[in-house]
């Protein structure tokens, strides 16, 4: 597959932002008919390399050649026209337009200048079927979960007649089934001779799909290998630049002991539900307990979290906190009772991109105090400093706008925002999404520590393994319904949960 000439060659690429050297003389090549994984820690420069390639950023130095011809795109539209189709890390579609419109925006099928809506819907459905997704293409994109939005973005990219397909962390919020389907599509595209650039933090996915691997570290090229020549452990070493026992540390963490669950539960939801989002469910969380929420994409995990936090209003059932009935009708009410919620959708519902890292971190704490009682600057600096270091947020300058951070680092900022409020129940929706392997271990350790310290955690993740490792109890969701709850003892494993998930009809994405 590497016999021919590279379809894409990037040579000596350098790119600086004020105060940060994001790329420093990086070479990269991509051959037709290969899947090439671009690997590196958070902030290594992967997304920047992709944005340089697609013309989102200009370069400071270096050249990009497509099929031997030097190019310099002025933007993704031009890159697309030249055959470079891209799914960016943050889903960047119009949530108020329909699914079909999003797929064909800018290149609608037309006859005599008029858009052929029927044809557009038909083709949209066909494309989504290819990804094994059966959703209403007329519904606005915003009514679907982030994972489905991500699949729609992928559908848009694979429809374009591309020579090069660039996927920046396309699988970060997908679960096993969707990933498998995406990989099937990627393989068939590869067999058609399309070159695929693939970014992910899931090492196992790299070994399943990638033919070659390029590693970046701190904006510099570490090297390029064929997948067979680079065992997983060395890959991690190349990425972090030292022989750290990250992988061992991941494994050595013991399965959590079952938490003490006598006494008044911290939170008790009775028949809580919301029409067309989640069927009424019962859920009890004790102090110090980690409850995992497992389920497929669109099964209603996020909706459960949003009801418990008051982000959406329940139209059914009741909630008790510390045994006394309360209504969690707004986030303010939930926060007042010690509940925190880290949304999966960090761009739309998490960060405030213009504000600095410091301001983003203190936001929830400040909101709880009210604007008349500002947190003294010295205290802010102390808190921020501590968590920037604890979570390895990089660059470590708390005064730069959070929008300038890499995706994974933004995620860490969000976590810090809630951690400093010292919540009694922390709801984490995909907290390790887009986070590199080192930081992921840190976050998992943190969850365990929080729980040891008496904080309850509701943990949502598409990665079953992670849920299994951290949870005392696992609630399984299917089709917007909480189907069963399992105590996470020795008898429970991934297969058992998959069985519980699969016990019903095949899932499908339902607008929430």
């Amino acid at each position: 597959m590497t016999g021919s000439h590279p379809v894409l060659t990037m040579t000596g690429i350098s790119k600086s932002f004020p105060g940060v050297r994001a790329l420093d003389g990086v070479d990269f090549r991509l051959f037709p008919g290969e899947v090439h994984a671009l690997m590196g820690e958070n902030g290594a420069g992967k997304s920047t390399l992709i944005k340089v390639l697609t013309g989102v950023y200009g370069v400071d130095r270096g050249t990009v050649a497509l099929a031997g011809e030097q190019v310099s795109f002025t933007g993704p539209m031009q890159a697309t026209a030249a055959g470079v189709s891209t799914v960016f890390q943050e889903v960047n579609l119009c949530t108020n337009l329909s699914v079909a419109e999003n797929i064909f925006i800018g290149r609608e099928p037309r006859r005599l200048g008029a858009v052929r809506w029927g044809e557009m819907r038909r083709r949209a459905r066909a494309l989504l079927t290819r990804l094994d997704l059966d959703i209403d293409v007329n519904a606005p994109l915003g009514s679907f979960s982030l994972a489905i939005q991500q699949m729609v973005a992928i559908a848009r990219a694979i429809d374009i007649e591309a020579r090069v397909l660039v996927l920046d962390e396309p699988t970060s919020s997908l679960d096993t089934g969707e990933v498998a389907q995406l990989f099937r599509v990627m393989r068939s595209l590869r067999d058609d001779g399309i070159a695929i650039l693939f970014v992910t933090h899931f090492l196992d996915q790299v070994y399943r799909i990638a033919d070659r691997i390029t590693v970046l570290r701190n904006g510099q090229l570490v090297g390029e290998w064929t997948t067979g020549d680079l065992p997983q452990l060395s890959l991690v070493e190349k990425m972090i630049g030292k022989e750290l026992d990250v992988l061992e540390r991941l494994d050595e963490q013991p399965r959590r002991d079952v938490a003490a669950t006598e006494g008044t539960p911290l939170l008790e939801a009775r028949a809580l539900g919301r029409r067309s989002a989640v069927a009424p469910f019962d859920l009890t969380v004790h102090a110090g307990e980690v409850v995992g929420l497992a389920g497929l994409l669109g099964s209603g995990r996020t909706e459960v979290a949003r009801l418990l936090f008051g982000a959406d209003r329940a139209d059914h059932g009741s909630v008790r906190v510390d045994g006394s009935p309360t209504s969690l009708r707004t986030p303010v009410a939930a926060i007042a009772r010690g509940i925190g919620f880290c949304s999966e959708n960090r761009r739309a519902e998490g960060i405030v991109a213009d504000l600095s890292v410091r301001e983003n971190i203190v936001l929830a704490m400040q909101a709880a105090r009210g604007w008349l009682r500002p947190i003294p600057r010295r205290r802010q600096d102390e808190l921020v400093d501590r968590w920037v270091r604890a979570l390895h947020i990089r660059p470590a300058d708390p005064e730069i706008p959070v929008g300038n951070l890499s995706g994974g680092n933004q995620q860490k900022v969000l976590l810090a925002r809630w951690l400093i409020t010292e919540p009694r129940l922390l709801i984490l929706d995909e907290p390790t999404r887009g986070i590199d392997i080192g930081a992921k271990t840190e976050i998992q350790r943190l969850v365990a520590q929080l729980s040891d310290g008496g904080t309850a955690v509701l943990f949502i993740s598409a990665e079953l393994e992670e849920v299994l490792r951290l949870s005392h109890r696992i609630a399984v969701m299917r089709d917007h319904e909480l189907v069963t709850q399992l105590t996470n003892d020795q008898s429970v494993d991934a297969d058992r949960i998959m069985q519980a998930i699969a016990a019903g009809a095949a899932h499908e994405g339902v607008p929430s």
Partner: protein
Amino acid sequence: MSTAQSRYRALTTHRLFWPVVVLVALVVANTVYRPGFLSVQVRDGHLYGSLIDILRLSAPLILVALGMTLVIATGGIDLSVGSLCAISGAVACLYISRQPDQNSMGGVLTALALGLAVALVLGAWNGVLVAVIGIQPIIATLILMVAGRGLAQLITEGQILTINSSPYKAIGVGHLLTLPLAIFIALAAALLIAAVTRRTALGLIVESVGGNARASRLAGIRSARITFLVYVISAACAAVAGFMMTANVSSADGNAAGLWVELDAILAVVIGGTSLAGGRFSLGGTILGALLIQTLTTTVYAMNISPQTSLLFKAVVVIAVCLIQAPGFRARFTRRRRVPAPAAAGADETRKEQVPA
């Protein structure tokens, strides 16, 4: 890159670089046209001169624009400020005109309190429409923009209400420490708003709501309260500006007072670097923007540009300022100039807003 060069780069890419350049250019143009422009004389212990006049005349605009800055930072807009100026001025003048002794200090203070109170109530009305009922700010405040003129007419009974009160007049044309009193009032308001927003967490919270309303809600911010508050603050600023405008001419004209000031205020805010989309705001930038617009207005008068073309002239300058501030336009401009050099770095920074981060 040498430090001198990078310092130059930091200066020219500063948000307020171009507004300052245009302001200086206007002053230079005025001086060339009329050499006496820069001179300041002492008369009766007060300072007089074109520059002082510009400062004095820009005071009401600065006030209105400061309030507008906070509204725009939350992602809203307040079109009703011009009408609010007229209403508060009319209320104050009406009260004074009914006093047996129009020069009584107590009477004037009561008049100011009344005018301010009416404006606060109307600001609260705007706030409720936007924050509680959820009407689009542009529509919600359009109601008062239009109806408010009628209200002002009702108060003055369709007449131009003339008063003869020296304490009230002082708000517009009085002096303190050799300088016009209006300058001090605007300065005090600016310092007060700066303290309220930057010494408390109000500024941060306003910027957060304007930057990402959904995220702010999930972080536990009561955005409805904050939104309500900024419309009330905006109305209070408009009221004080209204007092100045009516005091300047010792009369209240429901039709003319504060006419189109909302547009000048919005321009001042935008020139000052606060995005109409909400988020980060700059009070200093707004003051600079207001000074620029007032200088422009004065220039138009001073150069005897005919009234028919004066608006056009103003529009051309404003378009120029907005264009050179626009990242896309500047990027194109810099790139074209430096085509052979590979370093188009200046262009990149400015394009980051369009990046699918």
